[in-house]
């Protein structure tokens, strides 16, 4: 075996080196956490990675892990998709109808600044205790991100580029499809990047207030039993879901925004 084929040598590719260093950091954090117990910190406060792993395993075997996780993923995913479908056209309208946007802007920003957590009880009343209220929580948390991002993105469109297509007698629809929409793709992806975390926050907050399943519900119930390991298990699972979502967005970004990051 030649030296260059060995993993983790000095000649390793930057990607392999990054992966290695990430795993090392992960191991250090886990090790430090686990050793808190050895230093005499009661697991009732901070639990321990080994206890969490054990709980994950038993939850997975019982089918509960997937039941709760898939519930939260569905709520957040549907909310995110709905926010995209509604927010992007509104963002385009905001950029197109400038006066109407000026009229509505203070109201929109006011709604945007409203802590969505405070809406959760209202959403439970309006949309029930099941899936739909959590989808709406996630939706309302992410919606403004897409609206404002797309609006900002359209403000940066190169006027000369649009003018150039106008001199070639391109129709409005052609300019929209071939210039404006591709232009805002990176802004939509940036919206997704924020939206992954925010939609999970929206869904989980909804579950904390009132639900019968989902990771938020599991965390809330565990806390009610002073089951710190249960709380941390829910949190770790949420974190894993967010990390997978972020990786997916990063892959999209790599694929579609390369032209912006030379």
């Amino acid at each position, binding site marked *: 075996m030649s030296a260059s084929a060995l993993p983790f040598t000095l000649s390793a590719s930057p990607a392999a080196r990054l992966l290695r260093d990430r795993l090392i950091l992960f191991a250090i954090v886990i090790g430090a956490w686990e050793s808190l117990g050895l230093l005499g910190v009661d697991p009732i406060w901070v639990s321990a990675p080994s206890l969490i792993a054990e709980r994950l395993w038993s939850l997975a075997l019982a089918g509960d892990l997937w039941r709760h996780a898939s519930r939260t993923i569905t709520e957040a995913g549907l909310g995110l998709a709905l926010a995209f479908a509604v927010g992007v056209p509104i963002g385009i309208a905001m950029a197109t109808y400038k006066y109407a946007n000026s009229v509505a802007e203070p109201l929109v920003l006011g709604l945007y600044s409203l802590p969505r957590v405070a809406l959760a009880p209202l959403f439970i009343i309006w949309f029930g205790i099941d899936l739909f209220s959590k989808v709406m929580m996630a939706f309302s948390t992410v919606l403004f991100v897409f609206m404002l991002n797309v609006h900002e993105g359209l403000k940066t469109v*190169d006027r*000369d*580029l649009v*003018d*150039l*297509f*106008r*001199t*070639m*007698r*391109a129709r409005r629809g*052609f300019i929209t499809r*071939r*210039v404006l929409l*591709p232009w805002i*793709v990176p802004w939509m992806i940036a919206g997704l990047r924020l939206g992954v975390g925010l939609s999970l926050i929206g869904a989980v907050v909804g579950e904390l207030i009132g639900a019968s399943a989902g990771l938020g519900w599991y965390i809330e119930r565990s806390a009610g039993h002073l089951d710190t390991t249960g709380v941390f298990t829910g949190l770790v699972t949420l974190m894993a879901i967010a990390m997978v979502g972020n990786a997916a967005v990063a892959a999209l970004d790599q694929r579609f925004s*390369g*032209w*912006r990051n*030379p």
Partner: protein
Amino acid sequence: MDGFERASQGVTLTPPKVAVRGLDISFPGQEGAPVTVLEGLDLELAAGEFLAIVGPSGCGKSTLLRVVSGLLAPSGGQVLVDGVAVTAPPPQVGFMFQRDTLLPWASVFDNIAVGAELAGRSKAVIARRVPELIAFLRLTGFERNLPHQLSGGMRQRVALGRLLAYEPELYLMDEPFGALDSQTKTVMGRELLRVWATHRRSVIFVTHDIEEAVTLADRVVVLSQRPGRIRLDLPITLPRPRDGRALRGTPEFGALCSEVWAALDLAPA
């Protein structure tokens, strides 16, 4: 000898390619008083003629191109292209900006192809014509590259390719090589002359580079400070084909440049 000479002698009956009649352009100024950019401008461009416009910055030369291309409505007077008053972008007019204005996410091939697409060419024609243009503009091997992977000069060649793919009868060029270093600029000027010698389209070329104007054009028009009026309308009788580098030490070339300098009322550096 060519269309330009006959047209300029008034022998042909076809209308000039571009006729600018009493053109006024003003913008709302900072304190409410309108700023007049162009005032009572009269100018004609014969079919197949290469006209260069030079003038101090802010004299309205770029504004003039925007009016001819139909992007900007005049405050007074009118512009006719092929005898028709311009109220919207007229057909077969190609514009080239100082900045390359390429689609940053599209390959060299696609950026050129969009010109042919907007000219209404079929897929089959596009598939045949674009590679020809890529070869003609010496971009072979870069078909799949994105604009940010190219040098400034190459990007402007792609922009020129898109313009050629659109097959305009009139080229409006707003300092198209102004952002390039002088060496690349000279090369691009030579490319443009090669294109022009092949197709013999009408060109309005705005620049602030006097030597570039004299090297390329049949005629150099000098605009004054704002409000822009014509200070000089100078035919450039240097024989073609022209070689910019060889021209530059000749007394004829120097004399023409001095005349333009004098009209600009600026001392040569």
